[in-house]
């Protein structure tokens, strides 16, 4: 397996782009701060905790998806993807390498965005809850990287990735229970909501932050989220074209 070779290359490219790195870490920080400014204008009776963590999770989801999708499409437009194939790298190695490469970035994004949301909104969670929250946001980040890889296998140019962004990201804001309880949606919209990884992540988060809530009641959604990532990994390794 030459997956580590590709992962090492992806990581060294990331490390050589400090501007990109800083931006992909700072952007969610700034946006979480905007969220705080926004919530400060709302009545104090509002349960901010119900929104803060899911929105932070959403930001991580969005950025991990977008950055990875674009990076892989750039490989196609630059001709390096074709060159990797002609040099004998296999698609599973390329996809695995990308996943490993972006895992570090996604982990860091998840940790930083969560920490800021908890600090800014003065959320008082015990260590067990915090650990559970980190696990779910981290798994969501991995699923998002996989989603980015999967989507990019259909695009030939960067401009073909962008239409997927509103298509995948925006509906999940309204249908995944991020802003209100998904159960209140009409039944068809609830079903549609099940298509987005954010739905399962939000389920877990809401369960965990309940008073006396714990991961024990959310294993189902967490398992689906993990399965979602694995399924995308398998799908992407079928859809990434080795020969034009």
């Amino acid at each position: 397996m030459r997956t580590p070779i590709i992962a090492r290359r992806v990581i060294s490219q990331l490390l050589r782009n400090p501007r990109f790195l800083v931006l992909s870490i700072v952007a969610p920080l700034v946006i979480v701060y905007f969220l705080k400014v926004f919530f400060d204008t709302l009545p104090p009776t509002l349960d901010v905790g119900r929104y803060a963590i899911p929105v932070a999770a959403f930001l991580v989801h969005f950025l991990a998806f977008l950055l990875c999708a674009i990076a892989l499409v750039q490989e196609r437009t630059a001709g390096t993807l074709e060159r990797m194939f002609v040099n004998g790298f296999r698609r599973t190695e390329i996809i695995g390498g990308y996943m490993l490469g972006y895992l570090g970035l996604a982990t860091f994004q998840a940790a930083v965005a969560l920490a800021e949301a908890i600090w800014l909104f003065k959320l008082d969670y015990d260590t067990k809850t915090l650990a559970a929250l980190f696990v779910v946001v981290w798994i969501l980040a991995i699923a998002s990287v996989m989603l980015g890889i999967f989507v990019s296998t259909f695009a030939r140019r960067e401009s073909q990735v962008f239409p997927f962004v509103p298509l995948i990201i925006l509906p999940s804001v309204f249908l995944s229970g991020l802003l209100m309880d998904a159960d209140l949606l009409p039944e068809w919209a609830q079903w549609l909501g099940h298509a987005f990884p954010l739905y399962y992540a939000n389920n877990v988060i809401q369960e965990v932050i309940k008073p006396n809530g714990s991961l024990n009641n959310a294993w189902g959604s967490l398992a689906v989220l993990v399965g979602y990532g694995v399924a995308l990994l398998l799908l992407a390794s079928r859809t990434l074209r080795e020969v034009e």
Partner: protein
Amino acid sequence: MDAIEVSGLSKRYGRVEALRGVDLRVPGGAVFGLVGPNGAGKTTLIKALVGALRFTEGKVRVIGKDPLKDRAELRQRIGYMPQVPALYDDLPARANIEFFGSAHRVPDLGKRVEEVLRLTDLTDRARDPLYTFSGGMKRRVSLACALVHRPEILFLDEPTAAVDPQLRSRLWETFRKLAADGATLFISTHLMDEAMLCDRIAILRQGRIITSDAPRQILQRGKTRLLIGKDGKEEERIISGRPEDFAAALRLYGLSADVTAVSVEADSLESVILSLIEEEVA
């Protein structure tokens, strides 16, 4: 066995026929030039040969192997330099070469990378990221990536396009050196004058091979203009480019005492190729 054997190769992109029944044989250990104008199908043909493209019809064998079915084996034995640089701009030259080399499990990769850096004259800039490189230097890096695993056949897609004359002649020196070491080089070019540097060429036009031969043989299909000074007058004779016809013309005119001057203007290979391409059009 020839290094490359192609028969009846066709490729359609929707309604566009990029290749229309290409037949080609490339002997091993030689520099083979695929000559043709822009849009003739050179890149499509190279991509079909390296297994980066599914073709519509025909049969292709590279070192006796099918580029699609046997690609796992073949990819260790061929090298490919695409028309675009296809490199990682944010990584240093050495990291790029190491990355593509590591796909092949090259024994003692570090030493081999230093070797190709020397061969392509990049040792001094090996640590610099490629975004600081000129276009010509990136081509050298791209070439280094293509030959780091010591391939038996190297496919080079317009390696000298948009390269200054000095670098172009250095690249050709490298190509000849590689061929002398036993590699087969398959080089596409739209620069007709480069054809003379090849051992054998094929002319591709609108997806078809017009002719395939040694450049010297193709040159003989041109015309030679003889200007013969005799009795204070100048006489013009047009003969073929064949050496036998030239000898016959010399026997006819050159040896008599009243011939005071003979000047010879032979078609260049470039003009012969261009007229062959135009003949096809007519």
